[in-house]
Structure formats: structure tokens, C-alpha cells
């Protein structure tokens, strides 16, 4: 009997030990996951951005926890784009993480230069149980997913366009609410315009990521499209003429002198210096407008959802992400840092502590602390609302970002748009030239004549 009891006790103790050991084996931690890669350095090529500025003070915690060093190479966006494409074309392997965005996904997927992340996401040794892919803001992840549904990058910042408007100036003219439609926008601009403080400014400088970023949604809002059913451009149709006339008209009639050379820097500068009543531009600028060191309009502005067009409600959108180049040397370490930087905890901390509010995690957007922190000008609420509306729209981006040649296509149309804004060409003339240029690009790429459906994701 005594022996029997002893055996039972021993078995119990062994079971408990086995359970503890197995529980410990299953418990995932950054330290444990990073153990094989301790001492490696992850080289990151990324652009200057308010959300990266908010990342820099806190990424060292990753280094401390994992023993993996991270080296950022920060460049201005255009310069970074050039450097990135040169490095990729040369297949140098100099970087382990590189910037990827909405109109880079198709380009990088075409040559398989961005590692599909599925194998890392599904690896329990490398990916924590809290990773939760479904928690990413829908359009943010979609922007970095190719047409074969392979995730090519993870998003660290996502934005739609917002309208920023001066509450004091609208009050002065008896306007209770910001404009909700194109027609209302025109009416408000007409009412509030003065030479000293013009009504509005929209991006004008040519470029797929400059004026096309703001303008792209206007085409869809008027019911236009880029291509017919067989990849032939339809850029000189009635809808396009209406869209460009409307966009250019706002700038020409109600914009500041010299608006034809305005990029987002000038828009942000003018609005934050109190020189504009309204501006339509990217979400992250809310942080700038609320910063007393950079803005004279703190407490005098609010944000609003983008206006609805006569046919559809379309949004400007961009997602910034990071991808692992196929020729990267430290892929697993890179994945760990990428996972860390886009995790729920990090995104929320970045937002709450350092103001990097263009988060890509739904739990962060819905966190009560986030809502309180980003309540300035109603920014947090409007930003979340815009992202939510955009996620339900079938084609929220409304530029053909899925074509690797989008940069050149966007630039060709951007030139036409700037020519229209400056009055150098009529809409018909400019759009005919753009249509011809885009057709040449499509023909050279071998797309013209093929079903458009095979290109769209």
C-alpha cells in the first residue's frame, strides 16, 4: 500500500513537471524567438515621416529585449525611393527591411523582390500568438498584398486624406458645418475666399505621389475610370474633364498665388501659419497642426471626412510599410523587428507616448486612451471614421496601383494636371496628351488589348 502511494505521488510529480516543461516550451517571447539571431544587425531603409519620428525613441527596447541591433537609414521620400530601386535592381542585399507602399507592392511583387511574408507569419517560432493578422486596418494590409493575395509587407502607417478647416473662419462667415460634397465645397470656398487667406489649396506639383495622390479620388468621384475593359486608357473622357476642371478650378479660383507649384509641404506650411481656410491632405499632418512649435492655428481647426463627389465617395489613401527584400541577409531578425514595429502594443505606445497617430492596428484605433489623446480637432474620430468608410468601398484607392508601371503612368497624368492648374493647357489638350502617353506605356508593357480584369487584384 505504501509503495502504491509512493508510485502515485511520483507519477503526479512527474505529470506536473511535464506540464510545466511543456507550458514553458509553448510560451513565446521576443527573447526566446530572437535567441538564434542575437547579435545580428537589421538594416532598415525608410523615409522621414512623423510616425517614424515617433518610432525612433522607442525601438531601442527591441534591441534590449532581443539583442538584435537595428540600424535606420532615413532619407527624404523621393531620395529613398531612388535609392531603394537602385539597391533592388542591383540586388545588393544591403538592407534587411525596406520601405514598401501602395504603389510599390505590384512593382516589387513582379520580380519577387519583396519576400512573401506568409512563411514568417505562419511560423510559431518566429511569430507570437498575439500577432493577429486580422487586427490590421483592412486597407492598410490590402495595400501591401499583391494580386495573388501574398502579403508582401506589413504596414506601419496608414492614412486617408482629410479636410482640415479653420473653425473660427467658417464661423465668421456663418458656416456651421464643413462641406460634405463637392458642390458644398465650391460654395464654401466662394463664400470664405479672401486674397489674404484663400479658401483652399490642393496639391499641384506633378507626380504619382504628389498631385496624383490628392487628385486620384476625384476621377472616381465623378464616375471616371483609368482603363476600359481591355486596358486601353480612358483618361480623356468627359468624367476626367469634369474632374480636372473641378480640381484645377478650386486651386485657380480659391487658392493662393503660386498654388501651381504647391506640394504637401507648402499646403501644410500655409495652413499651419494661418494662411489658408481649408486644406485637403494626408492624415499625419494633424499632428503638425496641433503642435504649438510648428503651428499658429492650434485649437482653431478641425478635421472632416473627405467630400463626396456627384457619383461616388472616393478617398485618397496611402500606406507605408516595410518589406523584407529577397536578397536580405538577416531575414528572420528583420521579421522579428517588423513584427515588433507593427504589433498592437508598439503601435499604441508609439501613438500615445510620441504622437505617431496614423496607426495600422484596429485595437489601437479603438483604444479609449488613443481616442482621448487624438481628440484634438476631432482628428482621431474623423481619421478612424474615414478609414472605416474607405474599407467598405470596393476600390478605395482609385489609382491603378496594381500596375508596376504606375509611377510612370501617374507622372504622365500628373504633368497634364499641373499644366491644367497653371493654365498652360486646356483640360482637353492636356488629357489627350496624357492619354496618348499612357497608351504608349501600356503598349510597351504589353498590356493594351488584354482584359483589365486580369490585372486588378
Amino acid at each position: 500500500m505504501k509503495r502504491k502511494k509512493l508510485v502515485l505521488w511520483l507519477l503526479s510529480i512527474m505529470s506536473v513537471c511535464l506540464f510545466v516543461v511543456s507550458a514553458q516550451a509553448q510560451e513565446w517571447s521576443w527573447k526566446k524567438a530572437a535567441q538564434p539571431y542575437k547579435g545580428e544587425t537589421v538594416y532598415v531603409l525608410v523615409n522621414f515621416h512623423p510616425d517614424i519620428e515617433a518610432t525612433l525613441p522607442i525601438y531601442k527596447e527591441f534591441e534590449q529585449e532581443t539583442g538584435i541591433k537595428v540600424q535606420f537609414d532615413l532619407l527624404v521620400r523621393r531620395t529613398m525611393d531612388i535609392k531603394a530601386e537602385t539597391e533592388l535592381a542591383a540586388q545588393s542585399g544591403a538592407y534587411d527591411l525596406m520601405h514598401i507602399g501602395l504603389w510599390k507592392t505590384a512593382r516589387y511583387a513582379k520580380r519577387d523582390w519583396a519576400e512573401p511574408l506568409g512563411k514568417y507569419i505562419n511560423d510559431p517560432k518566429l511569430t507570437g500568438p498575439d500577432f493577429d493578422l486580422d487586427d490590421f486596418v483592412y486597407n492598410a494590409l490590402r495595400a501591401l498584398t499583391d494580386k495573388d493575395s501574398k502579403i508582401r509587407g506589413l504596414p506601419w502607417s496608414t492614412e486617408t486624406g482629410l479636410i482640415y478647416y479653420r473653425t473660427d473662419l467658417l464661423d465668421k462667415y456663418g458656416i456651421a458645418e464643413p462641406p460634405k460634397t463637392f458642390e458644398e465645397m465650391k460654395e464654401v470656398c466662394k463664400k470664405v475666399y479672401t486674397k489674404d487667406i484663400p479658401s483652399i489649396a490642393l496639391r499641384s506639383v506633378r507626380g504619382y505621389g504628389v498631385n496624383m495622390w490628392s487628385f486620384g479620388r476625384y476621377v472616381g468621384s465623378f464616375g471616371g475610370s483609368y482603363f476600359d475593359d481591355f486596358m486601353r486608357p480612358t483618361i480623356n473622357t468627359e468624367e476626367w474633364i469634369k474632374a480636372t476642371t473641378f480640381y484645377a478650378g478650386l486651386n485657380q479660383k480659391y487658392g493662393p498665388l503660386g498654388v501651381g507649384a504647391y506640394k504637401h509641404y507648402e499646403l501644410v506650411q500655409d495652413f499651419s501659419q494661418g494662411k489658408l481656410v481649408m486644406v485637403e491632405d494626408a492624415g499625419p499632418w494633424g499632428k503638425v497642426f496641433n503642435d504649438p512649435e510648428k503651428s499658429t492655428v492650434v485649437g482653431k481647426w478641425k478635421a472632416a471626412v473627405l467630400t463626396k463627389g456627384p457619383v461616388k465617395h472616393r478617398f485618397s489613401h496611402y500606406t507605408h510599410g516595410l518589406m523584407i527584400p529577397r536578397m536580405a541577409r538577416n531575414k528572420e531578425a528583420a521579421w522579428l523587428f517588423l513584427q515588433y514595429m507593427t504589433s498592437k502594443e508598439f503601435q499604441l505606445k508609439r501613438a500615445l507616448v510620441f504622437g505617431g497617430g496614423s496607426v495600422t492596428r484596429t485595437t489601437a484605433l479603438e483604444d479609449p486612451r488613443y481616442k482621448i489623446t487624438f481628440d484634438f480637432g476631432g482628428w482621431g474620430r474623423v481619421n478612424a471614421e474615414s478609414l472605416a468608410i474607405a474599407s467598405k468601398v470596393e476600390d478605395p484607392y482609385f489609382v491603378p496601383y496594381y500596375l508596376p508601371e504606375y509611377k510612370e503612368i501617374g507622372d504622365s497624368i500628373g504633368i497634364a494636371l499641373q499644366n491644367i492648374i497653371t493654365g498652360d493647357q486646356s483640360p482637353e489638350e492636356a488629357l489627350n496628351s496624357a492619354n496618348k502617353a499612357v497608351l504608349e506605356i501600356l503598349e510597351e508593357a504589353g498590356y493594351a488589348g488584354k482584359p483589365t480584369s486580369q490585372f486588378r487584384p
Partner: protein
Amino acid sequence: MNPNSTTIMSEKRRTLLMMLTPAVVVLILVTVFPLGYLFWTSLHKWEFGAAEKVFILFGNFVKMAHDTRFWNSVLLALSLIGMAVGLQIGIGLIVSERLYRPFKGKNIVRMLLLLPMVSPPVVVGVMWRMFLQPRLGIVSYLLGLIGVKNPWLANPKTALFAIAAVDTWQWMPFVILMLMAGLASIPDELSEAAQADGATQLQIFRYILLPLLKPVIIITVLFRVIDTLKVFPKIFIMTEGGPGTATEIMNFYAFRTTFQYSRFGYGSALSFTIFAVCILLSIGIMSTFKVRSE
């Protein structure tokens, strides 16, 4: 022939070759090889996303011949050269004629003249972009006081002129210094003799100094033409080739094609063409004015 003299000649030749070889090797490495590779690349279709380069012989050059945007960029480059070099030489001649004579504070003036020239082109671009900002720029403000209100960089009719003006601001000191050096090399007795005969300053300048300055002017024009053809930071920062394509000169178009559209083959063809244009312009300028090296 004396066999000893043959040996001496061979030895001299060998010594000469040995002394020239390092320079030739460096020249080949930094000039001939890159140019050769550039030309080789221009004979291929090579674009981002392509698995390999495809040899198409002169296909890119044929494409260039039909590319309206390329011809626009050539026209703009020639216009920019005409405006910028014309301004620099014209104003430079007047200013140098005044400055080369002795006056109080001459050294301080010469020092101040150097400041634009030694400023980095990027700084010049940023500075003038701010100066010409229609609402906040100091130059726009001052011009506004005399009734000139124009968004210089946003107006397709004035953007290229604005670039030429900024280039003139930066490089006119170089022209002035070159011309002053040329003037200083002309003996004073010639001017004095003309003055004694009753010639005015303008006549002295026109009939005596200017002809003697011709070789210096030609060299200065040559330098400035080639430099203007290469101007890049100012355009990149001030206008990015816009508005539209109003300031998209040849090298900027080549840059966009290569690094933004990632068409490396066609971009190489454009770049090689720019190089060829530089050579042709140099030969053209030198032979037009029949300058002979001593």
C-alpha cells in the same frame, strides 16, 4: 641611323610611356570605361522588373528620335543656355570692366562676389525657392513693391527664366573673375595710348579690350555652356522639372527616366546623348571662334 641614337630614342619612349601609363589607366577607369558601359547599356532594353537586358542595338535612339518629351527637353536646355550664359557674359563684361580698375574697397567687393559661387548648389536651390515663394518670399515681396507680382516657379512662362536668373546669380562671379583675369593680362599701355588719342572708355573697351579678351570669353562661354547643360540641383529643388515639363531639361529627363521610371536602357541612351551634345557643343564653340591652343 646611329644604333646608339635608336637605343636612346627607345629608352626615351619607354620612359615616356611609363610616365604616361598611370594617367592613362586612371583616365580609362574613370572616364572611358564608365562611358563605354553607358553606351553598352544604351544598346539594351533594360527596365525595372525585367529578368535580363535585351540587346536592341540602336532601338533606344530610334525611340528618342520620336520622343516629343525628349525634344522638348533639348529645346529647354538650349533656351536655358541661351538665357543663362547670355546674361552671365553680358552682365559679366560690364561688371568686370568696372571692377578691374583700382578703387577703394576693391578687395572686399571681390570677396563678396565669391560668396554665391562657393555656395553649394543645393543651398542655392533651397534659398531661392524660399526667396521666390509668392507669399512668403523676400524677393517676391520686394518685386511686389514695384508692382511685379508673379509666381515665378509656378508659372510655366517664367519658371525657366527663374532658373536661368538663379544660375546667373550663382555663376556670374565666376565669369567676372575670368574676365578680370583676362583684362589684367592686357598691357595698360594700349588703353593709355588710346586714351591719349582721345578714345572714350566705351571705345577703348569695344575696340581694344574686347578683341583681346576674345580667347578668355570663348573659354568662359565654353565652361558655362557645359555647366548649364549639367545644371541639376537647382531644378530638382526649385521646380522638379515643372510646372508640367516647363523646366525639364535633358539631364533632368534622363534622371527621371532612369531613376524614377527605372528604364535603365533608355535612360542610358539619353545620358549618352547628353554627353555627345556636350562634346559637339565644345567642338562647335571652339571651331566657330577658331581658338588654337598654344
